[in-house]
């Protein structure tokens, strides 16, 4: 196996005095799907922000395709082949679907951009139907699909996503996760933060559990799913056959300080 496309080592970062990440490392290879899970406030979104150049780390490094890109600005990273779908505010609400996709591909030459946008309509027929509709009038789930398509327009080699399935109906979740699996099969490294932890780990080649700004567990997605410790602390009990009267929320759980 070749060296990872993306190597993140020992990142420390935060906002003002609040240190959120306390030494996190992560790697992703071409065609690998990486899932990051963990409690709210563990630093998952912050990690994506650091890697995509939106937040300068206090310590640690980000290497992409063998080069140090720590602190390189997002627009530069986008030209080099990284792209990012934030959790919120990920489309331009006053622009149409078509305009959003064109803005997403603004760094591409005109002919290439037209082709890239056409590819997106083929992959997401729902967006083709609504190409003239203003993004602000799309439902939450439709907006999420548009945001993903907008990031894919630049044909990135690494795609970061912050909770791609949040707010989506079961059918739309399937659609998004199927799309991400297809993206990965085309050789793109996909790195996503998810709270739909079971579903996202099942899909992942590699899973990372972040807790209190540190790597708590790393391993193949399916191995983590079967790990009783991970299940108890981070996945909750399996919901399929549970009854509403039970109070078996993991009781021994206290958030480490």
């Amino acid at each position, binding site marked *: 196996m070749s060296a990872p496309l993306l190597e993140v080592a020992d990142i420390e970062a935060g*906002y*003002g005095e*609040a240190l959120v990440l306390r030494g996190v490392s992560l790697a992703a290879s071409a065609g690998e799907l990486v899932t990051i*899970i*963990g*409690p*709210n*406030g563990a630093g*998952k*979104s*912050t990690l994506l922000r650091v890697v995509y150049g939106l937040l300068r780390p206090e310590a640690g490094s980000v290497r992409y395709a063998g080069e140090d890109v720590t602190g390189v600005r997002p627009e530069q990273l986008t030209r080099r082949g990284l792209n990012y779908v934030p*959790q*919120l505010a990920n489309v331009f609400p006053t622009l149409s679907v078509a305009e959003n996709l064109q803005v997403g591909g603004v760094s591409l030459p005109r002919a290439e951009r037209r082709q890239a946008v056409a590819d997106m309509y083929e992959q997401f027929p729902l967006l083709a139907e609504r190409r003239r509709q203003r993004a602000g*009038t*799309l*439902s*939450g*789930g*439709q907006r999420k699909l548009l945001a993903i398509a907008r990031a894919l327009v630049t044909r990135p080699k690494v795609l970061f996503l*912050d*909770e791609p399935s*949040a*707010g*989506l*109906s*079961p*059918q*739309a*979740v*399937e659609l998004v996760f199927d799309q991400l699996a297809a993206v990965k099969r085309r050789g793109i490294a996909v790195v996503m933060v998810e*709270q739909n*932890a*079971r579903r996202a780990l099942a899909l992942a080649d590699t899973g990372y559990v972040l807790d209190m700004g540190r790597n708590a567990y790393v391993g193949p997605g399916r191995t983590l799913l079967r790990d009783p410790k991970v299940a108890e*602390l*981070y*996945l*909750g*009990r399996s*919901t*399929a*056959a*549970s*009854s*509403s009267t039970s*109070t078996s*929320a*993991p009781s021994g*759980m206290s*958030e480490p*300080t």
Partner: protein
Amino acid sequence: MSTPILAVREVVRTFGGLRAVDGASFDVEQGSITALIGPNGAGKSTLFNVVSGFLSAEGGSVQFEGRRIDRAPSHRIARRGLVRTFQVPRTLTRLSVLDNVLLAASGHPGERLSGLLLRPARARAYERKTRHRAHELLELVRLDKHAQDYAGVLSGGQRKLLDFARVLMTEPRLVLLDEPMAGVNPVLGRQLLEHVLQLRAEGGMTFLFVEHDLAVVMEASDRVIVMNEGRVIASGTPTDVRSDERVVDAYLGVVPPT
């Protein structure tokens, strides 16, 4: 049967040519946990906005505890005991986490000069009580350690949890939750769910929630209302709805495992 706590009748709301809510009708029974499900774009959030007074209805009516509220502004509806959370939380980022929750408590005697001057002891007692409750709620959503931090430093998921605490701080009778589980860690989500069940059992609080996590819907709700293209296409117990063909076609795609 008693009067429903919420009665939605033939509500219509359009955006330009788009009929986001197109004659939706349903009841929410007092003390129930009712789920509102449907595909993205079905009109669920728009309906929430109409019921909570953030959008006006263009047709139809909404009754809360037997009184029309479809012409009332949102703050008045909230004071009557109907409050909601947002899919994307509204956080006051330049206030502390604690102050965000405290602000949600209404009817503070110290709000009026007369109350403050004539009955200072009462204002102080109320202040103590609300602070105590605020800390309890922050503990529940695991934000107690952040009580003194600016709310702006909270992550997306944590803001959602703060929103939940703020809503409960108002001591509502009907709570509308817009995708409470989205973006919340599953372990914590389950604990919040237990808390919702407890509030219903102990305080008789009524909940109406939009949720895409069907395991949660099936487990927590007494009734499920299914929307598609702005209308209610089915309603019933979770078991009824799960096997309803129209629901499977419009939303589920496949019959979920039992």
